[in-house]
C-alpha cells in the first residue's frame, strides 16, 4: 500500500486563496498526483524525480465543522462532485449535510489529467478515501492529545471524537486547528465495505438545490468586473478565414468596442451581448479558404470503397482468413453511422482576462491543463501563468476537452484590453464541433455446423482524429510520449487509452476513436480480426459519449443479431451460448427484467444488445412498436449493468438513464451532414433531441458486486442503438444497417 506521505499533503499552514477568498484556519489536506507520474515526467526532462508533486483535490474542515472538498474533476452533470465528497465523508465519519463541494482553481504547474472516459470514480476511489481517513486519524490524534489519553481509546462518528471512558467529546470544527498540527498518519485504516454508511447509499446530490433555484453558476453565467461581451462569426468551411467584411458599419454600431480576428473567424466585442450580435450581423463577414469537408454522399462512397481492400490489422486472434476461405456459410453485411454533434445545452463559451503575461480564464473544462497549455501557446505566454477558474458545465460529453473557444476569448481580451466573455451562438456550436466520426463497417462471420460463429471479421473505415490530440493530450503527456517513445502506465490514474492507445495509434496508424472498444469481443469466438482503414475528411473529430463504442456496438451487436437469425437461434439464447461469467449474468438479468420470451401484444417487439467497456458490462432490451408512418416508437428500455461496487445507486441510475437517452437520440434522430464543404445543421430544429413525449420508460437493474468500481458515465450508451435496431427487425423483419433509424 502507498504511504499517506506520498499521496497526501498537509496544507493547513499554507495561504489558500480560492474563489477570491482567503481560507484561514482549520485542517486542509491535499491529494497529490501519484509520484510515478510526476517522476516520469521529470525523468523525461533529465531532471531528478523529486520535483514538487502537484496538487489534485483538497479538503478543508473549517472551525465551524463544515467540510468542503475542492475537486479537480469537472461536474458536467454526472454527479461526480457529490460522489467524491461521499468518499471523503465515508472515511471521515461526518454527516452528509455538513459537506460542500466546489470546483477548484487551476494555477501553477500543469498536471495531466482529464475528466472523461468514465474514469473519475476509478481514479479517485482510493485517493479521496485516503484523504478522509487521514483527516479522521489526525482529528482523533488531536482529541487524544487534548485529553491526554491514548488515541486508541477515542472513537470518531458523526463529526465528533469521543472518549467513552471519560464521557468527553469534541466536534471536528473545534478540533480542526489542533488536528492541523498533527503529523500525517504513517498508516491509514479504511472501513471495510460492510461498515460503509454512505458508500452504496443514494445520498441526495449536493449540487441539485442550486440547480433548481436558478442560482447555479455555469461558465456562461460568470460575471467579471469590467467585462465586455463577444459574439463570433466563424467560417463554415474548416480552416476558413474572413475574406471581407463591412468593418465600418459594424464599428459604428452602439456599444461596439472592438472587432478581433480569431482562429476560425472574427469576434465582435461590445458592452452587451446583444449589441455584439447585432453588430456582427452588420459586419456580414464573407469567408474563404480552408479545407472543405467531404460532402456526406461522397464521403459515404469513399468509406465503402475503403472497405473493398484490406485495412491495417488492429487486432487479431486466430486465423480468421483461413476460416472465412474454407467455409461456405459466410454471413456478410455492411453498416454505416453518421457524424454526430455533442449539442451540449450550454453553448461553448469562455470568459478571459489577459493582463501582460498573465491570463485568467473562467470556464469549464474536461482538460484543465490542455486548456491552459493551448491558451498559453496562443498568447505566447507561459502556460503556468494561465489560471483557470473552473465552473459547472451545462453538459460536456467530450466537447469540453477542446480548447478552441478559450483561445478565442483570450485573444479577444488581449486585443481590447478588458475581460471578455465570448459566447457562441447555437449555430456556431453545431457547425464547429469536434464530431463523433462518420464510419462504415464491413463484417463477415462463419457459422459452424453447431450454429456458432467460428470466425468474425470487423473492418471499420473512418476519419483520422489526430487533429484533436494536442488539445487533450496536453503538454506533459505529449512531451513524455515524444521523449520516452513508450507508454507509462500509472495504473488507475490516467485513462488507460491515454497511455496505451495513444502511442499505439501513433505507431500503427490505427485510429482509436474509430476502431477502439471493438474486437476482441467478449463473445467466445475463436478467430477474430479487426481492420481499420483511414479515409481523410477535414471535419474535426473528437471525443463523444462512449466514442468509439457508440458506433462499434451498433455494428457488432446488430450483426450478431443477424448471425443469430442466420443460425435460426433466439437472439438472447444465441448470445448466451457465447458469453460466460459476469457477461452472461448481465445478459440474463436484462432478459429477466424484460420477460424475454413472453409474447407481447399491440405489435410490440423486443431487441437485445450487450456491450462491455471501461470494465463495465451492460445489456439492454428495447421494446417498441412501429406506427402507421413506419416510425418506431420505443416504449420501454430494460437495462442491466455491472459496474463493480456502487458509490451512489441513484447516481448510477441517473447516468444509465441519461446514457440510454443520449444513445437513443442518436439512434432515432442524430445526423450531421456535410454539404458544400460545411456542416448543414445549425440548431435544434434540424438536429433534433428527444422530447418528453418521445422518451421511453426505463427499468434498470444494478448487479451486486464487491469488485472495484468501474465507470458509469458512458457504458449504457452503446447498446441502445443495436437493441432498438434489433427490435425493429423483430417487429418488421427489416434489417436497418444505417443510423439514424427513423
Amino acid at each position, binding site marked *: 500500500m502507498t504511504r499517506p506521505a506520498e499521496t497526501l499533503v498537509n496544507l493547513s499552514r499554507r495561504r489558500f486563496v480560492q474563489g477570491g477568498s482567503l481560507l484561514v484556519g482549520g485542517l486542509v489536506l491535499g491529494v497529490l498526483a501519484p509520484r510515478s507520474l510526476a517522476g516520469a515526467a521529470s525523468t523525461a526532462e533529465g531532471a531528478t524525480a523529486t520535483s514538487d508533486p502537484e496538487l489534485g483535490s483538497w479538503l478543508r474542515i473549517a472551525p465551524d465543522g463544515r467540510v468542503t472538498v475542492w475537486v479537480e474533476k469537472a461536474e458536467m452533470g454526472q454527479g461526480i462532485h457529490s460522489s467524491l465528497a461521499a468518499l471523503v465523508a465515508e472515511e471521515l465519519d461526518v454527516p452528509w449535510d455538513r459537506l460542500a463541494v466546489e470546483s477548484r482553481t487551476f494555477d501553477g504547474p500543469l498536471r495531466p489529467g482529464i475528466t472523461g472516459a468514465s474514469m473519475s470514480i476509478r481514479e479517485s476511489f482510493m485517493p479521496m478515501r485516503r484523504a478522509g481517513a487521514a483527516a479522521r486519524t489526525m482529528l482523533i490524534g488531536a482529541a487524544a492529545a487534548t485529553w491526554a489519553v491514548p488515541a486508541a481509546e477515542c472513537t470518531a462518528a458523526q463529526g465528533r471524537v469521543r472518549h467513552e471512558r471519560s464521557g468527553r467529546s469534541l466536534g471536528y470544527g473545534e478540533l480542526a486547528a489542533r488536528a492541523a498540527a498533527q503529523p500525517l498518519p504513517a498508516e491509514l485504516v479504511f472501513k471495510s465495505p460492510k461498515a460503509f454508511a454512505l458508500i452504496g447509499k443514494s445520498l441526495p446530490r449536493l449540487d441539485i438545490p442550486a440547480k433548481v433555484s436558478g442560482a447555479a453558476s455555469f461558465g456562461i453565467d460568470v460575471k467579471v468586473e469590467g467585462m465586455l461581451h463577444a459574439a463570433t462569426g466563424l467560417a463554415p468551411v474548416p480552416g476558413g478565414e474572413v475574406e471581407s467584411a463591412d468593418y465600418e458599419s459594424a464599428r459604428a454600431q452602439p456599444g461596439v468596442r472592438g472587432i478581433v480576428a480569431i482562429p476560425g473567424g472574427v469576434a465582435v466585442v461590445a458592452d452587451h451581448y446583444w449589441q455584439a450580435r447585432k453588430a456582427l450581423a452588420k459586419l456580414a463577414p464573407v469567408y474563404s479558404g480552408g479545407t472543405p469537408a467531404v460532402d456526406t454522399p461522397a464521403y459515404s462512397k469513399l468509406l465503402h470503397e475503403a472497405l473493398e481492400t484490406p485495412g491495417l490489422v488492429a487486432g487479431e486472434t486466430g486465423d480468421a482468413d483461413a476460416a472465412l476461405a474454407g467455409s461456405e456459410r459466410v454471413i456478410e453485411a455492411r453498416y454505416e453511422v453518421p457524424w454526430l454533434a455533442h*449539442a451540449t445545452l450550454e453553448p461553448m463559451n469562455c470568459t478571459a482576462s489577459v493582463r501582460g503575461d498573465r491570463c485568467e480564464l473562467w470556464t469549464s473544462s474536461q482538460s484543465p491543463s490542455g486548456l491552459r497549455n493551448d491558451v498559453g501557446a496562443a498568447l505566447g505566454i507561459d502556460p503556468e501563468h494561465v489560471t483557470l477558474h473552473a465552473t459547472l458545465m451545462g453538459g460536456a460529453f467530450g466537447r469540453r476537452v477542446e480548447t478552441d473557444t478559450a483561445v478565442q476569448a483570450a485573444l479577444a481580451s488581449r486585443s481590447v484590453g478588458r475581460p471578455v466573455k465570448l459566447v457562441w451562438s447555437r449555430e456556431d456550436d453545431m457547425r464547429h464541433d469536434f464530431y463523433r466520426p462518420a464510419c462504415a463497417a464491413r463484417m463477415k462471420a462463419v457459422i459452424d455446423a453447431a450454429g456458432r460463429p467460428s470466425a468474425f471479421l470487423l473492418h471499420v473505415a473512418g476519419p483520422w482524429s489526430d487533429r484533436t490530440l494536442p488539445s487533450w493530450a496536453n503538454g506533459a503527456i505529449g512531451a513524455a510520449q515524444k521523449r520516452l517513445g513508450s507508454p507509462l502506465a500509472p495504473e488507475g490514474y490516467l485513462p488507460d487509452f491515454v497511455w496505451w492507445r495513444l502511442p499505439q495509434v501513433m505507431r500503427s496508424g490505427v485510429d482509436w476513436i474509430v476502431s477502439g472498444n471493438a474486437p476482441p469481443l467478449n463473445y467466445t469466438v475463436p478467430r477474430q480480426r479487426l481492420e481499420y482503414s483511414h479515409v481523410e475528411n477535414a471535419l474535426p473529430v473528437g471525443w463523444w459519449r462512449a466514442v468509439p463504442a457508440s458506433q462499434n456496438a451498433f455494428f457488432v451487436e446488430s450483426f450478431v443479431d443477424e448471425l443469430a437469425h442466420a443460425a435460426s437461434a433466439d437472439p438472447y439464447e444465441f448470445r448466451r451460448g457465447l458469453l460466460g461469467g459476469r457477461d452472461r449474468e448481465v445478459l440474463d438479468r436484462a432478459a429477466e427484467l424484460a420477460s424475454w420470451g413472453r409474447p407481447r401484444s399491440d405489435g410490440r417487439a423486443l431487441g437485445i444488445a450487450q456491450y462491455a467497456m471501461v470494465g463495465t458490462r451492460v445489456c439492454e432490451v428495447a421494446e417498441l412498436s412501429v406506427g402507421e408512418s413506419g416510425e418506431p416508437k420505443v416504449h420501454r428500455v430494460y437495462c442491466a449493468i455491472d459496474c463493480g461496487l456502487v458509490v451512489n445507486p441513484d447516481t448510477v441510475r*441517473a447516468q444509465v438513464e441519461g446514457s440510454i437517452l443520449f444513445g437513443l437520440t442518436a439512434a432515432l434522430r442524430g445526423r450531421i451532414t456535410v454539404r458544400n464543404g460545411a456542416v448543414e445543421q445549425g440548431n435544434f430544429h434540424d438536429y433534433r*433531441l428527444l422530447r418528453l413525449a418521445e422518451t421511453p420508460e426505463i427499468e434498470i437493474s444494478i448487479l451486486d458486486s464487491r469488485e472495484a468500481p468501474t465507470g458509469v458515465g458512458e457504458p449504457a450508451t452503446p447498446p441502445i442503438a443495436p437493441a432498438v435496431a434489433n427490435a425493429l427487425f423483430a417487429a418488421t423483419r427489416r434489417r436497418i444497417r444505417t443510423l439514424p433509424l427513423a
Partner: protein
Amino acid sequence: MPLLHLNGTPTRVDADDDTPLLWVLRDHLGLTGTKFACGIGECGACTIHLDGQAVRACVVPLSAASGKQIRTIEAVAAGEGARIAKAWIAEQVPQCGYCQPGMIMAVSALLASNADPSDAEIDAAVTNLCRCGTQPRIRRAIQRAARARAAGSTKAADDATG
C-alpha cells in the same frame, strides 16, 4: 428607458427595444437563472412567465414586455413554484442542470392552469429539451408536484424517494 414589472418589482433597464428579454435579464439585470441555449425558441431553456404565460425569452423583444408582469426562476422557485422545486429535489432530477430552470418554469405555468395534467397533457405542454436525459425524472417530478398541490400541502413533495 423602459419600465419592467420584474418579479414584483418595478425595474428600469437601459437596453434597445429589440433586445430579447433573455439578454435583458441575463446581461443587463444579472438574472442568470434564465439560460441561453438555442436563440430560436426551440429548446425552452429561457422559459419565463409573461403575465402568467410560459414564453421563451430568447424570441420575445423587450418592447413586447411593456406593461406586463415578468417572472423568472429566481422568484418562481422560491414562490409559486416552491412545490415544484421540492419535487425536483425529491426526484433528484437535474444532472448538468442547465435546462432545469426552464423546465420548472414550463411546469409551473402548466400546473397553474391544469392542476392534474395527464401524460398527454404533460407531453404537449413541456416541450423543453434536456441533453442529459432527465426526462423520466421530470415526468415523475411533475406528477409528484401535482399530487402535492392536490394534497394542499408540500408534504408529498417533501417525502424523499427511496
